[in-house]
């Protein structure tokens, strides 16, 4: 174990900084309107890809950088530290991409991986259904084989970025006669296929970042089956392992920039004639939030850092996921505590900053639901790590 940056890692960090001094997009400079924002974010990811900063640890034969996983961590850190926004194709990069790399045929990987990296094709994840949330294996969307195609009927929900997606990694039941986990397959669905209807849903933040997805006799070529027929559950567990574990690596960097931003706001705002940050209680509260973020980083490095290049993440990703939700929620709630009545002063020049913290706070409530609710992560740990008897 060794943390100090090697010479080549230092060179890389400098490279990222040099890139940022030429081309720079800060989260706060993004257009407010979601459609415009998507356009800006896609070209940002494309520029970062051209510079070698996206999929750096992915295999080079499919457009990745073929470099050690540690380099992607360094890149993420430098980008986030400069206030750059997260890559827009997060579902492609952190969730489905690793599964395409692992289970896809060479044809599939050549076809799908490069446009994911360049944000030319946005991906979404069609797992959850109205009646199948935590109990994902009870999903009912059906795919029936008809010659060289599967015909899909059913409904998906909470599909993040569904309305912007070109492709969906979709779980469907392909066999009713076997135990439920074994009758599920993963299909790569072209979102422009006839019979696909996407209805955006507005979230508590006011943004429509997820959608309902209706599938009515949607024909999907057999070549778009990922892995073998009936492998869907296995692939979904791999996908979710990355969503719960590997995704923490860029996320913790983001959280750290929020923490630094909160400290800086507290250093500028005044309450009863003194700087908020002079209050020892505010300092300690922020320190506790910092500890949450730092421990997330340390734990994620130790448990999932090595899986950035696509390997299978084990059940320890559930402990990362629990820490990630805890760190994010504590940080967001702490900022409300620390800024306190300054949030209500009505000062026009503080509105944008207050909005940011309100939105961050609201969004943080999802952290213990998406990717598998907190209670489900605990069940996974109880079963697979602690081997406790089942109910």
């Amino acid at each position, binding site marked *: 174990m060794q943390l100090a940056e090697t010479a080549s890692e230092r060179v890389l960090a400098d490279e990222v900084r040099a890139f940022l001094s030429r081309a720079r997009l800060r989260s706060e400079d993004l257009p407010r309107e979601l459609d415009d924002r998507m356009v800006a974010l896609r070209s940002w990811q494309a520029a970062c890809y051209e510079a070698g900063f996206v999929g750096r640890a992915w295999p080079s034969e499919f457009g990745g950088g073929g470099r050690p996983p540690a380099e992607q961590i360094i890149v993420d850190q430098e980008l986030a530290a400069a206030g750059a926004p997260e890559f827009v194709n997060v579902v492609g990069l952190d969730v489905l991409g690793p599964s395409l790399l692992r289970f896809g045929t060479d044809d599939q990987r050549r076809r799908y991986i490069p446009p994911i990296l360049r944000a030319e094709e946005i991906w979404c994840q069609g797992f959850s259904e109205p009646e199948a949330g935590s109990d994902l294996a009870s999903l009912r969307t059906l795919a029936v084989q008809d010659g060289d195609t599967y015909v899909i009927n059913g409904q998906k929900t909470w599909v993040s970025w569904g309305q912007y997606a070109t492709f969906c990694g979709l779980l469907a039941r392909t066999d009713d006669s076997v135990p439920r986990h074994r009758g599920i397959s993963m299909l790569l669905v072209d979102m422009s296929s006839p019979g696909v209807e996407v209805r955006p849903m507005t979230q508590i933040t006011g943004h429509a970042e997820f959608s309902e997805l209706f599938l009515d006799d949607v024909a999907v070529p057999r070549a778009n089956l990922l892995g073998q027929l009936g492998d869907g559950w296995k692939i979904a567990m791999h996908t979710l392992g990355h969503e719960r574990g590997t995704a923490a690596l860029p996320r913790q960097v983001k959280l750290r920039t929020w923490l630094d931003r909160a400290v*800086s706001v507290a250093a500028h705002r005044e309450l009863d004639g003194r700087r908020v*940050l002079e209050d020892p209680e505010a300092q300690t509260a922020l320190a506790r939030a910092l*500890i949450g973020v730092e421990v997330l980083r340390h734990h994620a490095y130790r448990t999932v850092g090595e899986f950035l290049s696509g390997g299978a993440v084990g059940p320890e990703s559930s402990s990362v996921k629990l820490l990630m939700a805890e760190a994010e929620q504590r940080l967001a709630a702490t900022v409300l505590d620390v800024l306190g009545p300054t949030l209500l002063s009505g000062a026009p020049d503080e509105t944008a900053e207050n909005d940011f913290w309100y939105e961050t706070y609201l969004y943080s409530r999802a952290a213990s639901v998406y990717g598998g609710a907190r*209670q489900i992560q605990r069940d996974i740990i109880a079963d697979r790590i602690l081997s406790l008897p089942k109910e």
Partner: protein
Amino acid sequence: MDLELSDEQVWIEESLGTLLDREWPPAQDAWQAGAPERTRLWESLVEFGLLSGAGSDLGAIELCLAARAVGAHLASVPLLGGVGVRYALAPFAAELPAAFGAILESDSRVSIALLEPGGSWSVSSTHATVESNRLTGSKAAVEHAADVDYLAVVTLADGEPGLALVRTGTKGLELAPQPVLDESVPLSRATFVEAEAEALVDRELAETIIERLIAVGGLLAAAEAVGAGAGIFERARRYASERRQFGRTIGSNQALRHLMADLHVRQASGWSTTLFAAATLDDRMSGARETVSVAKAYVSRAAREVAHGSMQVFGGIAFTEEHPAHRFLRRIIAREQQFGDAVHHERELGRSLARAATRERVAV
């Protein structure tokens, strides 16, 4: 950046486990161990090479592996001082006064004397002073003082910290055992009246070494608490799979399953942050001090949570003297208290966040 334990580190971890299984009674009987067992264990740790002096390639990571094994076995040896002082001194071997250098070359046992009666763990609350090689002052919570050859004493004069070595038999030094929560980690008050001492006079060097000493001391304490946490948690996990009530094993109730899942997260992440902080010390990275504070603050709370939760899993049986649960709990609290508890380190971190932000504001 390389985030996995090396093969050699894994080997050290396994060998130390075997060594402790062999040389030390099982954790539930460990409280009965006396001076002969302690001496024997200490000697085999020395033989294993845990003290290898100047030029040693034992880093904080390896030492934390040892401390964790000691905690899991509820072993009782002057490890913190013994390896902590050497770790702090080793990189500066060439610049050290003779007596300090000699420590690195010997097997002598050392304890750290930092805290003072009525004071906090901040070096700034030190009053002990050295003048022409005579040390005066008093210290509290000195571990294993009766079993060691030297005390490494933190001093302060005109706001400048120093480090002094005092032989335990020296005239002018009096040791008085203190009442303690964990009897397997005996603590003493030490009173020095012009006791003969060898002082580290180079201020800058002293400051660097003390900072390193306090950091590694806190980390070793954290690692030991993680070990003790693993000891009690593993027992609770097994108990939950065996004990039956309402016609089913208690561990099949989701309330306990989820409680234990949370405890597992605390255990696993407590170890991650300890190792990470150890690596920042070994690599002498900037911000190492803050990272150590993160680890010590986190593990202090986490290990306590693990002990409390595990005791809840045991129910009434864990409240008997005979059951080992309280021995682990006691060790965990004892390690939480050494080198600053959670509140101490959270305040330190909070102040350092504020200092950094103020500097930035001035710079803008």
